[in-house]
């Protein structure tokens, strides 16, 4: 571990590793601190999807720009991150959903996204195993450039590429305290030694609150418990992710052939990890209602993960007024993987050049002090 670094990143998930790569590529010295192993939090338990269809402009833009980076990433990092664009099909069940979809698609098209509302026949052309009657679908919105990548391989590839520059990654290392002086960051104390620095990025996912507490900054994040399952491998059947905001279900076929998907149970905050049989019942019934032919497919395992939820389901990104050098990069509310390339770029531009993106204002921690909150409506799982 370094004794001194330009930037200390707390959290070895996708955002931490992506930031390490981008910052050290700019010539900065970087120390990543991860209390367990790389991808041990939300990155390692996520559904691997990359979606550009959002209800808020800034999420849509972040995602569109992230996809542009994902498209070239395997080449850039010299590792196959298994990026593939099979599309995202979002089921529309009723008039209210249709109205929201029309609004979303209009905004997304304005931002340059290739997206359309398609009828039930087209749904079955794109994902032949779907039963539109069982789904109770009246239409869907579909974006062919949405897709997937392998979250483990992407994180590992960023981590490995960052080591070619001035980055050190300390896993199984816990941050104990952050020392400040006159509203400036001075030092990060871990259980394996301390590092002098003026910049700390809090990319600790659901543990970001613990980190923010160390510098007496209150963040409104809560860990929202989620479950997800994987089936046995099958030959390639469909390429698109299928999701429904009404039923909360999402599922897709991964590169190796397994179907991975989830569905929410009753909202439960906290870090309880044990998966439940209720999830298996609920997920299997809904999944076989959507795609009856999957009845014969075996579930191999299911596991728990956590959304780092903010009150409006939008991330918290940017600097802090009260503490110079303390950078927020958390609260992704289940969408950290897909937004990471662009988020990291924006934060890197700020730290290396002092360039402040407009998004810092929209996604600042201070937005919760105002009365008006804009919710991200397109949340699934």
């Amino acid at each position, binding site marked *: 571990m370094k004794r001194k670094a330009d930037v200390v990143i707390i959290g070895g998930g996708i955002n931490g590793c992506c930031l390490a790569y981008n910052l050290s590529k700019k010539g900065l010295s970087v120390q990543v601190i991860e209390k367990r192993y*790389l991808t041990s939090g939300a990155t390692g338990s996520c559904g691997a999807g990359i979606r550009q269809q959002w209800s808020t402009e800034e999420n849509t833009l972040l995602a569109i720009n992230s996809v542009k980076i994902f498209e070239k990433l395997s080449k850039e990092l010299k590792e196959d991150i298994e990026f593939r664009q099979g599309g995202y099909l979002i089921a529309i069940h009723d008039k209210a959903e249709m109205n929201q979809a029309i609004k979303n698609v209009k905004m997304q098209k304005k931002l340059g996204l290739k997206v359309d509302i398609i009828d039930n026949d087209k749904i079955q052309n794109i994902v032949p195993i779907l039963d539109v009657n069982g789904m109770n679908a009246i239409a869907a919105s579909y974006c062919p450039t949405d897709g997937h990548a392998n979250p483990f391989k992407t994180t590992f590839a960023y981590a490995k590429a960052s080591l070619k520059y001035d980055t050190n990654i300390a*896993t199984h290392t816990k941050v104990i305290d952050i020392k400040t002086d006159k509203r400036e960051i001075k030092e990060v104390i871990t259980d394996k030694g301390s590092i002098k620095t003026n910049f700390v990025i809090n990319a600790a996912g659901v543990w970001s609150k613990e980190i923010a507490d160390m510098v007496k900054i209150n963040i409104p994040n809560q860990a929202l418990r989620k479950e997800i399952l994987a089936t046995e491998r099958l030959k390639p059947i469909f390429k698109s992710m299928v999701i429904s905001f009404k039923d909360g279900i999402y599922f897709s076929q991964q590169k190796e052939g397994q179907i991975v998907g989830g569905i*929410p149970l009753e909202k439960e905050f906290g870090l309880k*990890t044990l998966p439940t049989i209720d999830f298996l019942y609920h997920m299997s*019934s809904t999944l*076989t*209602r959507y795609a009856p032919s999957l009845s014969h497919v075996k579930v*191999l395992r299911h596991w728990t993960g956590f959304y780092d939820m903010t009150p409006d389901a939008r991330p918290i990104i940017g600097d802090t007024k009260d503490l110079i050098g303390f950078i927020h990069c958390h609260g992704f509310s289940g969408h950290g993987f897909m937004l990471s390339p662009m988020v990291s770029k924006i934060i890197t531009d700020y730290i290396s050049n002092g360039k402040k993106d407009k998004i810092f204002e929209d996604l600042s921690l201070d937005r919760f002090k105002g009365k008006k909150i804009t919710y991200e409506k397109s949340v699934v799982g």
Partner: protein
Amino acid sequence: MKKKKAIVCRCEDITEEDVIDAIKQGYTDIEELRKKLRIGMGPCQGRVCIQIVRKILKNYTKKDISKIPLPKSRPPIIPVTLGTLSSDKDEKKS
């Protein structure tokens, strides 16, 4: 036995050499190895491979085997079809 040919994980076709290569690249946590190589992610859920991987890890990291924790358990214990699971209980009304 030749390391190139010794299969450690039959579900995902991973050899002893694959595991050693990954450890040399720095993947020394059993969960990391899982995510890197997909060991323990097949139908056997690690019954065949995990103890062997632990032994390889022990040899290369010189850690005591009791210091190499098993991966988190991820149910079900044996594969179950979606049809069986969905026949057991009606879909929750949400």
